């Protein structure tokens, strides 16, 4: 593991700044709750949270923000962007990552003392996720090995009766490679409470992977059976976000 104190790469080759797309929904009046920053996974953008979760979080008294991944990014650049946006918000922020966004959040936690963190359907280790993708969607996944970009299918992401397939974007293979070869994140700074949520019926994140991730943060995953990988777009979207906010309210009191 590289040193947290000696950050040669950041000192000599800082991540170049870009204009970041941040969508938000704000409560009225401001409840002085910590802001929530949603971080989508690959193929998704901030739009995925605007569909339901941003507005719902605001209606429960939390200012909610979602950050789109930058174009032609890398894991390092995504982490940089999350920390930049979080540090730019008025109060200590709760980071909520989905899919590969959870991997980004787990790395960002070593760079920014978040108030709390939620890893939703987290892809922390790329290899089992790649295996699962090969099993459910071989024709979308295989081209990625030859530089063709990874295709995600409806079956992988959503439970029946729900689809946002046409909004998905293809990321260059290099991005997937940077995810697969990512080193293990350093320990979070400021020891924030971390919650892991997911679905046992997720076609990308296996139940085993969920348990492993939760165990790493000293807990058990909160499960929502019957839902697909994209918890925030599923027809049952309200259940997980309500559970997340309930958990958060309890943690903030502690």
């Amino acid at each position, binding site marked *: 593991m590289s040193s947290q104190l000696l950050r040669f790469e950041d000192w000599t080759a*800082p991540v170049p700044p870009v204009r970041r797309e941040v969508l938000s929904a704000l409560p009225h009046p401001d409840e002085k709750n910590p802001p929530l920053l949603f971080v989508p996974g690959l193929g998704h953008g901030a739009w995925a949270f605007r569909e339901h979760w941003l507005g719902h979080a605001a209606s429960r008294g939390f200012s909610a923000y979602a950050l789109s991944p930058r174009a032609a990014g890398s894991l390092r650049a995504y982490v940089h962007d999350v920390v930049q946006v979080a540090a730019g918000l008025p109060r200590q922020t709760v980071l909520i990552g989905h899919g590969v966004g959870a991997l980004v959040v787990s790395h960002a936690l070593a760079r920014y003392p978040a108030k709390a963190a939620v890893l939703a359907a987290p892809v922390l280790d790329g290899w089992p996720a790649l295996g699962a993708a090969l099993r459910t969607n071989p024709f979308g996944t295989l081209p990625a090995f030859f530089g063709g970009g990874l295709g995600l299918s409806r079956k992988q992401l959503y439970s029946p009766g729900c689809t946002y397939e046409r909004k998905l974007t293809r990321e260059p293979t290099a991005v997937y490679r940077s995810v697969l070869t990512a080193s293990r994140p350093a320990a979070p700074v400021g020891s924030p409470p971390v919650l892991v949520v997911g679905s046992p019926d997720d076609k990308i994140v296996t139940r085993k992977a969920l348990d492993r991730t939760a165990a790493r943060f000293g807990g058990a995953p909160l499960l929502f059976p019957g839902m697909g990988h994209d918890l925030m777009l599923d027809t049952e979207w309200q259940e997980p976000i309500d559970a997340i906010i309930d958990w958060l309210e309890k943690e903030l009191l502690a």
Partner: protein
Amino acid sequence: MQDTPDIADRHDAVCVIGAGASGLATLKSLREQGFSVDCYERETSVGGAWNWRHDRSPVYSTAHLVSSRPLTEFPDFPMPDDWPDYPHHSQLLGYLERYSEHFGLRDDIWFGTEVVSVTPAGDGRWDVTTRSVGGGAERVQRYAAVIAANGHNWAPKPFTVDTSEFRGRVMHASAYKDPAQLRGRKVLVIGGGNTGCDIAVEAAQQAEKVWHSTRRGYWFAPKYLFGRPADQMLPPRLPLRFRQKLYRWMVRLTAGDLTRYGLPAPDHRPYESHPVVNSQLAYYLGHGRITAVGDVASMEGSTVELSDGKRIEPDLVITATGYLPRFEFLAPELLDVDEDGRPDLHLHAFARRHPTLAVIGLLQPDAGLLPLAHWQSVAVARWLRLRIDDPAKAAAVQQKESVRPVRSWSRLQVVPSSRHWFEVGHTDYLRAVEDLLKHMEPAS
């Protein structure tokens, strides 16, 4: 809180002195380790030296950072990445204000309150006497630990030449605020540090005539090299000797040999005194707007006599002699202060004989101070936590660490001066702190 003469026991709470960059980082690190904290700040807002609104702040209206953004920001709260490479001092104050707002630090800061004295109360605990700056009764409270983050850039180092018979105006650089003060004057700037050079350059743009008096030659690093901030171009991974070589080479390529303009040649290797980052001094020397002169011998009437016998007649003398660290509220033996007034602290932070006393930010690094102050405060907070959670391990760590001399982690032969003894190489320093943090990690 009531105003009582008896000692209020704050039990496990920690007292932090100062709410500048170092104090704020300390407050936050202590909180993250679960301590309750009382932070005392004599001004009415955060920012310390960068808080230009108060009189003791050393910053002048045109001051910019001399280390670039990535080497200056807190490691866990980056500055906005669309800020300039070298932000303006007011941006730094804004940054510190946002830091304290973001982490809700203000709730634990007592503004307008100064610390009068800190005395040991036995058992590692401390009696801290505070007083409202506006007057009022003193109050004594007992704390489990005291961390001084009172800064070292507010008490001007006295100018040793007698100025009582001089008719022109003499002021310390701390009183210099705005270039308008220089307009049309004949200015003598004394001191070759960053402030002295900055003011000389400003005087070159504003004043009628400028002399710049330096005692020792410095290495003038450029702000940019190949279009990038110069401190991002020097590979910090390399050993010190190589970096000193590269530095010489960089200076030769940019500022070049300044002895041609009458400046003394450096009498020390690069990094052994605080680096002076100024690209413009050589430019104005070359345009004859600044005249380099030697040391000042005496000042009388309208004349300043230099050590080489030359006489000049400035009407404004700005002494950029720098600042001295001061800890009036602490008895000198608590910090093992030697006869020259220099505290002897482990890693320039931990009091060697008082495990619950530390100083944060007493460093002159060759990069920004904030990252170093941050990691110092993390180490101090983890140390205080370890003393509570695992006293046996804490005792072992203390036994090993408290006797380590400065040269065990710093290879620099610093220039013997009241300003340069706490000069550190930031990579050496961070390595030493990282080492200490590893020693304190719970066995897993």
